[in-house]
């Protein structure tokens, strides 16, 4: 895997964990009491964190899928070239 792709994947994973943090922060930092109505900050953090997790997960899944497709195509081309040479 190219170093750029590796770095990009790490960044995407960091984004995913940032989403988890945002989702849990209102309750961990305790500016949202459990059982009470959600304040604006809590709603914002939950929506933003959820969206961040969703985007990051989708990016990871699609990146992995297309990387596998490229790897399979390269392997097929290599096998075909070797068969033609032999």
């Amino acid at each position, binding site marked *: 895997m190219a170093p750029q792709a590796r770095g990009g994947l790490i960044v995407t994973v960091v984004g995913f964990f940032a989403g988890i943090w945002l989702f849990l922060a209102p309750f961990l*930092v305790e500016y949202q009491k459990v059982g009470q109505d959600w304040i604006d900050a809590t709603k914002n953090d939950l929506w933003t964190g959820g969206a961040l997790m969703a985007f990051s997960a989708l990016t990871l899944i699609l990146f992995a899928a297309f990387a596998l497709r490229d790897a399979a195509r390269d392997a097929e081309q290599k096998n075909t070239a070797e068969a033609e040479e032999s």
Partner: protein
Amino acid sequence: MVKYVIGATGALLGVLAGAWLMLAPFALAYQNSGADWADPTFVDFWTGLPLLVVSVVGMILYVSGLVEELRRRGIMRRPYAEPAGQPQAPSEPSDNASGSENNMEQVLLPLVTAMLKDMQERDRGRSETHQETPNNVQQARSAGEEGSVRS
């Protein structure tokens, strides 16, 4: 190639999310401007800023990967790359000198050709005018002969 586009799009969304998190406390007015920052503002701002920076780095990485892939496939050319099939062999200074002379000749050749053509046309025009007035020619000849006699 598609994987890099997907990654860059995801990183761009991360950038936008980070920017929103930094602005949200003021945009949604759960942080009054001028007042001390509340806990939600601290959380949102200090989550948004690193997310923004990290996502920008990620986007640069994905885009550089995409550019590298495009260059590898020959879709994009490397800047200042030599054209394929014309390897530039190391040459002697004399070769460079002769090459510059050839270039000079190639530059000057159309100019010299045009000048020669122009001169030929002028000569042709002169000869035609002389043929049209033969008396003048005869007079000139006789004048020349007289001149030669006098001298």
